[in-house]
């Protein structure tokens, strides 16, 4: 399978970024910025939910190794688990282009090739847009937007929006082509320090189009909402 061929790629990327050749000056320090969010709470159906989300980079001004890991545990089952490794290259003041791999353990073991951009859009919208091609040849797209509103220097409200679009039906994932699902929410955090911030988050998920129809046919919900509390760490 393609998965096996893809897996060594992140390692190669890591070597590439950390190798001296990729930064001309030996005094050039490596910097990093990671955000880790861990939260737990309940869904509308009183099921327990827990989420993790790691997002960040290590590298220099121009080239970075970008890592992401996110997933959700509902009840006792890991519903989703994604792990990404990308090379991120600064191409414009506010933008990086990225390429790499993503490997999902759940809901199905699937490997993807990723290409996309991340950066800050006008009016301070933190933006991520990525295309994926799976090892089965399926193509999809994801967009995520978030923006901070400061009530005080420490109390910050962050609305966010994320959606997925598929180019074709993917039976294994119970996904139909077109807009498959979207997630909107609000996170209210309190920055005790810039690095430590407890938060509460409400989030609403909805399935759309053929994806929603498939869920309907199986007798599953096409939407869900959760309320969670957690902690956000920066390091």
């Amino acid at each position, binding site marked *: 399978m393609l998965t096996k061929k893809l897996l060594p790629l992140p390692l190669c990327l890591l070597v590439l970024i950390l190798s001296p050749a990729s930064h001309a000056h030996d005094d*050039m320090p490596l910097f990093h910025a990671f955000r880790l969010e861990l939260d737990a709470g309940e869904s509308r159906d009183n099921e327990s939910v827990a989420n993790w989300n790691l997002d960040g980079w290590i590298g220099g*001004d121009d080239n970075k190794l970008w890592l992401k890991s996110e997933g959700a545990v509902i009840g006792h089952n890991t519903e989703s688990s994604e792990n990404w490794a990308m090379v991120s290259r600064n191409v414009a003041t506010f933008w990086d282009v990225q390429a790499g791999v993503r490997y999902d353990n759940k809901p199905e073991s699937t490997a993807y090739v990723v290409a996309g951009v991340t950066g*800050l*859009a006008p009016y*301070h919208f933190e933006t991520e847009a990525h295309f994926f091609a799976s090892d089965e040849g399926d193509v999809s797209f994801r967009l995520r937007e978030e923006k901070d*509103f400061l*009530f005080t220097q420490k109390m910050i409200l962050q609305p966010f929006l994320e959606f997925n679009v598929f180019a074709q039906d993917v039976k294994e994932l119970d996904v139909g082509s077109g807009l498959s699902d979207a997630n909107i929410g609000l996170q209210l955090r309190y920055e005790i320090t*810039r690095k430590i911030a407890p938060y509460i988050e409400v989030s609403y998920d909805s399935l759309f189009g053929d994806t929603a129809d498939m869920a309907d046919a199986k007798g599953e919900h096409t939407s869900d909402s959760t309320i969670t509390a957690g902690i956000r760490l*920066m390091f």
Partner: protein
Amino acid sequence: MIRSYANSLGLLWVLLSWLLPMSSQAAEYQLDIRKEIVNVTGKPLKKVTVNHSMPAPTLWWTEGEDVVVHVTNHMDEPSSVHWHGIMLPGYMDGVKGLNNYPGIEPGQTFTYRFTVRQSGTYWYHSHTNGQEQDGLFGALIIRPKGIDPVHADREHVVMFSDFSEEDASAIHAHLKMSSDYYNHARRTVGDFFQDVSDNGFKLAWQHASDWGSMRMSPTDLADVSGYTFLINGKTSQQNWTGTFKPGETVRLHMINASAMSFYDVRILDSENKRLKMTVVQADGRNVEPLPVDEFRFGVAETYDVLVQPAEAKAYTIVAEPIDRTGFAIGTLAPKEGMKGLMPEQRPRALLTMADMGDMDMGDMDHSKMSEEEMADMMAQMRSGWAKTGAPRGDKLLSYSNLKFLGEQQDLRTAEREIIVTLGGNMERYIWTMNGKTEMEAEPIALRFGERVKLTFVNETMMAHPMHLHGMFVQLDNGQPAGKLPDKSVVIVAPGKSYSVLLTADESGEWAFHCHLLYHMASGMMNKVVVAKLDGKDSHALEKVTEGKGDGHAH
């Protein structure tokens, strides 16, 4: 071959200096750099000391002296000492990688030897990593050989610095992690509604969208906060005090040895009136006496001022950082232990469109504007950065009023103009000169003896104190050619351009950088190479290293 010959010559020099008693014209100094526990804020912290002191000891030299300074590095990381504002052979300037200066490795000693060719108020500091922030800086006062044109009954060094509990490397890492990591005055939702109630929804929305569309913040005055501001290493509570007798003329050697902090400096008497300061020197060079009530003090600048406190009372030296996050406070008093008036914090300024360099308002249809919109436009066209909050009628120091004391030697106009664009990417905390970071930059090459005009074009929203090593520049400040003042640090205000003239009369490779420490560390640095011959840089290099191979490493 040349180098090893030079090295052995250097060794011979040292042997000779050990064997022969020092002539009256040469003084020898020993500086020992260590990492030691210091306690400034109540929390013991490991910082950089020189001769067990932070800040480093004040050095008093005399013009014409042949100084010999042995600097020993007892730390486990490389170090260096750079003589800020001093004209000397490039090899002695103390910047690793330039003029073959090797830096000072752990356990090593480097001996600086040069003839002091100038007088005035300067300072010295590490040019390695963030050691300057971490404590390696000290005052350097050079007395003139002849009669000092400035008469004073007594003198004090007043050196401002910004102390952080964090190490410089941590601060740099945090800025790279999030460039607004230290900004605790960001615009809030409440600020927006305040703006709505002050200016109406339309203008408030326009302000927010002007800044939002550019992905910038009007609160971006200083990149680092959390500092404790010090005078001569003392906190406001510890209250550094300079004594005087009423009626005396007191000369204050003021040095801004801060890593990142600009200040508004004033001296208050017991009735909250400003004590007149007469500026007599800027960056170590004499200027025609200029009385002021207050001045904005750029990072790495020095000013000598004369004051005449008439009453037997305490006067308060107030240095207020431009982001208004505290004060450096000291006292002038007839005796120790007195304390004067405490100032009130002035409001923090908000940047305007003028600080963005966005003055292109000509295409607006003014006739359609309401009175409020007109007033707002005028306000946006005035720099927020330059707003000090000083009482109306106070005389503030302006570069345009500085005049060289005496007559400049070189009255030539510039043969060519070199544009130096100051740029940056605040989002990623990358700072550039002519669009390039230090690592990518092409050096600026000058012919020996050439007269050039350097024009800084500041495309960022921050002021940059631009510093050239090894040579003074003359501010192109509108004074007659013979009166243009010398400076070694030039503040270039946000969104503005500023020109200086330079006679390239010191050969070598000279560091040319923003003196905000983390701007320099994030790329805002280049070098100016002055070549004696028309050939390549190496010619200049050889000239410098051949003759002056008298530094050595044990």
